[in-house]
């Protein structure tokens, strides 16, 4: 008996494998839906050069359709450019319908899977898809509808369409009602996500309302629009064979030389000489790409992997910047002191990458002294909240000796105390360990770069911690002199039976000895205070144009 081979649509595949894209549990479903909607809003605002203002509502509305699940409503409203009515079904109801796929930009979304998966999840668990209201500046009225995914055909189906008057000129509102579980705090918490999103998006005004609580507003701390660098053509060394062949098909009748020179960065005439030396037939360069067989294209791929090329440009990488981070970090709560560090974009594993670190000590942290610090991980400015164990960021934090920067740290673990360590990795080509993009692959080069950033941020933090430690030392020393001096002298007196006159003289001697130590501690505190003031002065200088240069010098010296 033979079985009939069938093919399934992309939507069918994802609808059966939603756990792969962030819907493996109720908690994850809430967070993934929220995250995908917010990512889309932020990307849309940045593309249209609008300062984003996002309003979020999350609430538990009823019992869920499944056991141990609640029915959750998530609504995200933005002030972005809005979607045309024609685009709505593509965006919310069709998988892999992305405008961002493979364009080499540091955008949050890339493949066009996430928001369609959120629609599918709502559809599966609540029999309703996404409820969307959209308006572009050109539209007279807003367009309102419900979208569902046609699982068999991978297309979006519009339902209950209408035109309505809306209180804003442009923007998108999307609402999902689905089975999920609300977790507010902790690694997988909604508040942790919102806190992280506000940290790495200083230009974002965020208003959120959870259940019946009063709405919370996090005002933007920067009015500067994020300048997203233009994408650059891919670098041959960042590609896999399959991607190379697929890229080739876009060039059809263009010659191989044209394909290589215009389809990639860092390939020029000199590269062709190298390729010839590596055994590539020169004649092929003049042949149309479409006329080359797959075996020949494989040989081209192999040769170009061997060729020596300049490292990819780092121009395409976006940095949040130390000035923005230093303002944004204060939105995490009341901060005792903090340190931020923005590394210059560099090349890791042949891909451009920028690493930034912010460390803060919070005044009202829930963390006890021996609780692990809160770690916020970001990839392309999106918080990562699951599967942290194998993540490059966590591995890097664990591998550093934080004791030398004044933090407590159990052996081979993350440090402890009321601190937040936020680490952002930005790159057009982040290598994740899984499709739900929760864990950054820990390659040796990336871990080394992360370590450098963390150590430099640690050195800056140490100036604050050191001053505090010196103050504590001096205080402790002063109290030691007062408390232990009499106990020591009287104890010696009782054991030896020495007369009072001798004990009085010994007391004077003891005060002299300990007084010398106190003077030394005062000097150490004065030195630490000077160092800390220098650091504060530098942080205050972030708005000045000259800052970048002086800080470059400083980070070289620190390293």
């Amino acid at each position, binding site marked *: 008996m033979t079985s009939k081979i069938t093919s399934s649509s992309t939507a069918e595949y994802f609808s059966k494998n939603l756990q792969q894209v962030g819907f493996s549990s109720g908690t994850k479903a809430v967070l993934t839906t929220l995250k995908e909607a917010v990512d889309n809003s932020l990307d849309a605002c940045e593309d249209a050069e609008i300062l984003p203002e996002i309003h979020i509502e999350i609430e538990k509305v009823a019992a869920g359709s499944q056991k141990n699940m609640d029915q959750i409503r998530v609504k995200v409203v933005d002030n972005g450019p809005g979607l045309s009515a024609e685009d709505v079904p593509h965006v919310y109801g069709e998988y892999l319908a992305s405008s961002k796929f493979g364009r080499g930009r540091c955008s949050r979304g890339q493949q066009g899977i996430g928001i369609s998966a959120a629609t599918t999840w709502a559809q599966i668990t609540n029999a309703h898809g996404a409820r969307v209201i959209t308006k572009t500046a050109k539209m007279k009225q807003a367009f309102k509808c419900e979208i569902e995914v046609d699982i068999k055909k991978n297309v979006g189906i519009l339902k209950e369409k209408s035109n309505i008057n809306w209180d804003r000129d442009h923007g998108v509102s999307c609402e999902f009602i689905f089975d999920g579980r609300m977790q507010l705090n902790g690694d997988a918490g909604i508040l942790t996500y919102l806190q992280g999103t506000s940290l790495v998006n200083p230009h974002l005004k965020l208003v959120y309302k959870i259940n019946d609580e009063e709405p919370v507003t996090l005002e933007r701390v920067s009015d500067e629009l994020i300048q997203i660098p233009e994408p650059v053509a891919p670098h041959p060394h960042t590609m896999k064979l399959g991607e190379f062949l697929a890229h080739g098909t876009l060039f059809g009748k263009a010659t191989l030389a044209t394909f290589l020179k215009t389809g990639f960065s860092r390939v020029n005439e000199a590269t062709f000489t190298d390729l010839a030396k590596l055994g590539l037939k020169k004649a092929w360069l003049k042949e149309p790409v479409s006329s080359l067989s797959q075996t020949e294209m494989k040989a081209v791929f192999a040769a170009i992997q061997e060729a020596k090329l300049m490292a990819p440009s780092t121009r395409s990488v976006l940095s949040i910047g130390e000035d923005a981070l230093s303002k944004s970090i204060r939105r995490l709560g009341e901060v005792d002191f903090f340190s931020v560090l923005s590394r210059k974009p560099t090349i890791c594993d042949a891909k451009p990458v920028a690493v930034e670190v912010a460390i803060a000590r919070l005044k009202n942290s829930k963390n006890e002294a021996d609780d692990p610090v809160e770690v916020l991980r970001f990839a392309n400015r999106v918080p990562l909240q699951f599967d942290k164990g194998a993540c490059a960021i966590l591995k890097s934090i664990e591998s550093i000796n934080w004791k030398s920067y004044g933090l407590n740290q159990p052996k081979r673990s993350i440090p402890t105390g009321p601190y937040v360590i936020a680490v952002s990795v930005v790159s057009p080509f982040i290598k994740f360990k899984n499709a739900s993009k929760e864990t950054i692959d820990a390659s040796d080069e990336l871990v080394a770069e992360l370590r450098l950033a963390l150590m430099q941020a640690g050195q800056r933090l140490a100036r604050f911690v050191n001053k505090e430690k010196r103050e504590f030392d001096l205080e*402790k*020393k002063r*109290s*030691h*002199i007062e*408390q*232990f*001096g*009499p*106990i*020591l*002298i*009287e*104890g*010696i007196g*009782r*054991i*030896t039976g*020495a007369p009072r006159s*001798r*004990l009085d*003289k*010994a*007391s*004077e*001697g*003891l005060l*002299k*000895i*300990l007084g010398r*130590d*106190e003077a030394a*501690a005062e000097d150490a505190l004065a030195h630490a205070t000077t160092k800390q003031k220098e650091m504060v002065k530098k942080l205050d200088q972030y708005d000045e144009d000259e800052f970048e240069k002086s800080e470059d010098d400083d980070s070289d010296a620190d390293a």
Partner: protein
Amino acid sequence: MAEKTVEKKKRLTSGSEITNLAKQTCLGMLADLEKARRPVLEATKCSLDNSFYNPKVGYLTPGDKKVRSELNVSSVQKMSRSVFFMEILLRNIEVGAVNTKRELYYMAKGMCKKDALYKPLDFEDQAESDEIVDFIGEMLEVYREDLNCYANDRGGQTYSQYLIVEETLPNGEKATIDLSMLGTSPFQPKNRPQNLKLRAKKKIEFCMVVESEGTANTLVANGFTKRYNNIVIGSGGVPSNAVRSWCKLIQKELDVPMFFFGDLDAYTIQNIYRTLKAGSAASLIRNSDYSAPDIHFLGVLPEDIKKYDLNDYPVKEKDVGEARSLKKAADALKNDPFFADKKNKKLADILRWLVKEKRRCEQQAYFSVDPRDPTMIEKILVEKIRKGNYV
């Protein structure tokens, strides 16, 4: 039989000597303070890097390294605590009171609670007060027992038909214990061997220290002490101070051949047997009284596995404890002066064999030789002694 080790000169241990030494130390501190000089308290460093094996005496002795505590604002707390505890211990010596470390901890806490002056000295946990008691002992070079601070008397259950122990009680009275009169109960040695005198009703042929107290009990129950003029001691794992000093006393006073019967594994050789024979790095200043250098390792020997067809096992490297023991044994072969000395070459060879082969054989494996004969194990042990089949 191997040559006997030579006794070292007697140390000071009397209460008045210790009180005098403590007073001298405090007078030195006072004189320094009067001249506004920083007093320094110095103690012998008790660690492996300050341990030397002296083959003439047969135990680990301390080198020149010292732990120094100079008075400054950071160490003034430790110095105050040392003087505070010295006073408590000297008072105990004066009135003849004894305490455990745990009791001393609570006594110190009580004093800190009742007197506001002492409040800053308060101890967070027993580890803090233990550190001070140990420091005083190492500084004065006396045992904690000399300071009337006793450990729990663990292990050392002793059986014999011919041994008589005479104990001098704190009030000076004498108590005589004839071990043959104790029925099936063992004699439990005390931590202060200087209060005990030994004599034998009849010449004792040998003393057998057995790693497992259960196996020691089995040997006795099956008549081992009735058939032979011997002493059987159950060491109960790593020998406590009481067991070590008891073995030393038997070796010194009765001059009988002494054998150790235990497992063939890295932990037993490197930890249990080495501590019994040569003392430990932690007790460097006490090893002269807390080791029995003339003891021999009777088995299980590597060759016994084949000779008696004993069941042995591979070391489970996934087992944290067993893997740690192997690693410690490998370290000991490199760094422990006891195993580096040619006098102990045969033991080092056994340890090397264990590290290489990664196998172990328990002492109870002898029971597999003839399960029907309850006296088989004692026959094997006696045969090994007679044939000189030991290390």
